[in-house]
């Protein structure tokens, strides 16, 4: 077996783009900063040098316009990849995405397709505040004709992005900024991870924990601690929000009888609402206790870290919810939970990684 190639998600996404661009000359990158020295947190680094300005195109600050341009080019058979530094900026382009990207294949009865990929990044931390840290995936998840994927681990991120770039449909890839720091083994060369639904990442029988994006990393941390208390969690990466394929989740709940969903975005009207409603429809009889959702509370993201203490779900809040769901005595979980809490207390709450020095 080959030696493990350890990359973080940002590097994996960069590699995916490189591999896909080399393979398909129709692919080109558009975005504000894609060819600048920061290269979208490194995710487009070196591409302009390698493929030139005609394939790595710096954009004016005109999200709606250049999204329309990308869609027009895609309908003509080109394969644009748009990158937004924040989900928030994509808000300006929703008319183009929801109408022209999502509906053209349908309206033309399949005659035209829109092979467009739009990457957008969820900000978090370093006080960036209410308009640079929105996790708005339900906006996209509700639109038929779009595919929506939230990568979490490096191997999958690379394979999902290559799959997206080979897909004939518009694919929205929502990346949590803190996920960029997650490292893992990434195979070299071209491979794809299909955009077909949630996937199990850890097996267990006591409770099903489903999470999106960065919350999956928190959930995995929680699962380790829960294991120490004798609770085994079946952990599922939501991965693909649309098309929504609930089967892996429903199957898991049929075995565990318990569901905990953790949203990267708002809890209310979030992705978890659909997951819970679907699970209840399809596996009502298997549920031994009502499903629980965690997610952001009902207010914008304040800038000051002092106001964020209880804002984001954490491994600890996931542990507490899972413990309550499974009904174990608090005493059983107390020691491992305390150990984790002590470890986490050493880390600042507003940066993804101890080495981070701000600003984003």
């Amino acid at each position: 077996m080959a030696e493990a190639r350890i990359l973080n998600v940002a590097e994996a996404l960069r590699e995916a783009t490189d591999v896909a661009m080399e393979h398909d000359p129709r692919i080109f990158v558009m975005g504000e900063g894609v060819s600048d020295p920061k290269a979208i947190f490194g995710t487009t680094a070196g591409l302009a040098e390698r493929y030139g300005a005609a394939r790595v195109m710096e954009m004016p600050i005109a999200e709606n316009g250049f999204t329309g341009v990308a869609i027009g080019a895609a309908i003509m058979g080109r394969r644009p990849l748009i990158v937004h530094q924040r989900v928030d900026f994509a808000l300006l382009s929703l008319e183009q995405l929801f109408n022209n990207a999502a509906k053209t294949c349908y309206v033309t009865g399949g005659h035209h397709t829109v092979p467009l990929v739009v990457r957008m990044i969820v900000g978090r931390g370093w006080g960036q505040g209410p308009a640079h840290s929105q996790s708005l995936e339900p906006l996209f998840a509700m639109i038929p004709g779009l595919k929506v994927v939230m990568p979490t681990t490096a191997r999958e991120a690379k394979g999902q992005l290559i799959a997206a770039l080979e897909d004939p449909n518009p694919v929205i890839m929502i990346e949590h900024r803190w996920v960029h720091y997650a490292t893992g083994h990434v195979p070299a060369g071209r491979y794809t991870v299909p955009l077909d639904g949630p996937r199990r990442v850890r097996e267990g029988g006591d409770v099903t924990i489903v999470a999106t994006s960065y919350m999956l990393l928190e959930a995995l941390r929680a699962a380790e601690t829960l294991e120490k208390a004798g609770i085994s969690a079946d952990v599922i990466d939501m991965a693909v929000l649309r098309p929504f394929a609930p089967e892996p989740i429903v199957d898991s709940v049929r075995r565990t009888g318990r569901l905990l969903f953790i949203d990267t975005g708002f809890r209310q009207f979030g992705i978890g609402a659909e997951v819970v409603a679907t699970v209840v429809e399809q596996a009502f009889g298997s549920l031994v206790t009502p499903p629980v959702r965690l997610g952001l509370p009902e207010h914008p993201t304040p800038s000051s870290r002092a106001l964020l203490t209880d804002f984001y779900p954490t491994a600890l809040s996931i542990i507490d919810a899972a413990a309550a769901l499974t009904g174990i005595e608090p005493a059983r979980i107390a020691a491992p939970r305390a150990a984790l809490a002590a470890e986490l207390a050493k880390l600042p709450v507003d940066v993804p990684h101890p080495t981070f020095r701000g600003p984003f």
Partner: protein
Amino acid sequence: MTTSRAGADLPDLYRAMRRIRMIEEAVAVRYAEQEMRCPVHLSIGQEAVAVGVCAGMRPDDQLVSTHRCHAHYLAKNGDLKAMLAEIYGKAAGCCGGRGGSMHLTDSTAGVLLSLPIVASSIPIAVGAALAIRQEGRDAVAATFMGDGSIEEGVFHESMNFAALMRLPVLFILENNLYSCYTGLKDRQPRRPFVDLARGYGMPAEAADGNDVEAVREAARRAIARARAGDGPTLLVFDTYRWREHCGPNYDNDIGYRTEAEFLDWKERCPVEQAHRRLVAAGRHDEAAEAAMTAAIQAEINEAFAFAKTAPFPSPETARSHVYG
């Protein structure tokens, strides 16, 4: 590559306009049967802009239009039967009945898309031009824009982008003075429309939108620039919509414009102007007119017969093609 009507002479242009006029009037008349159950935005009165611009376009040149797309589609040789079947909601429609009259498309003719959200079509045309550039072809893209659509921010973003990249695009401003029932003075400050291009260092030209030859000449210059790699042009054509914004009727009685204004523009009918010019030049007469309109009428009758008898799509197919 040969050009479709680049050498289009006045008789061709006149015939194309007359044909569009007759088709649109047939739609208006038959609309009362309540079988065309979708909105229609008729182009009657505005034929010269569509025909004059498309005269210089080839089938591989791409056109992107708006809610008021009938004339553009027809001038670019979009299939008539597929258009009418679409309006009737039939499976043989150019969108299989999925789009209705505001989504006309015909790839063979180079009608890339029509889109009902105002100005949404403008960057699509710029994207088509970008694709053309990437493919290394000498084709052009054209977007027809109502005087309302230039109020949308995406018009500005598209102009900036096209000018920056020197893309082969024609921005065709088809000014009919109104956005629905609202006149220009309630929506825009007074200034020459061509001044809009200055903010992008883009060439612009205005011409009489009811004079098909003037339109053709302005468009020809813009197309030549675009094909030569000299970038986009803003073309401004003033014209007038005769009937109501949406639907088959006249509506001068409802009070947003005067009958006098309407009559004034009707006097300048683009189709009749061309007709008079041909007759005056001795290139057309009553007999030729009769033969021509009879042929067109026969085509129209056949197309309506086709559209009306064509089968509806079956309901089960409604869920297909969400993804490609």
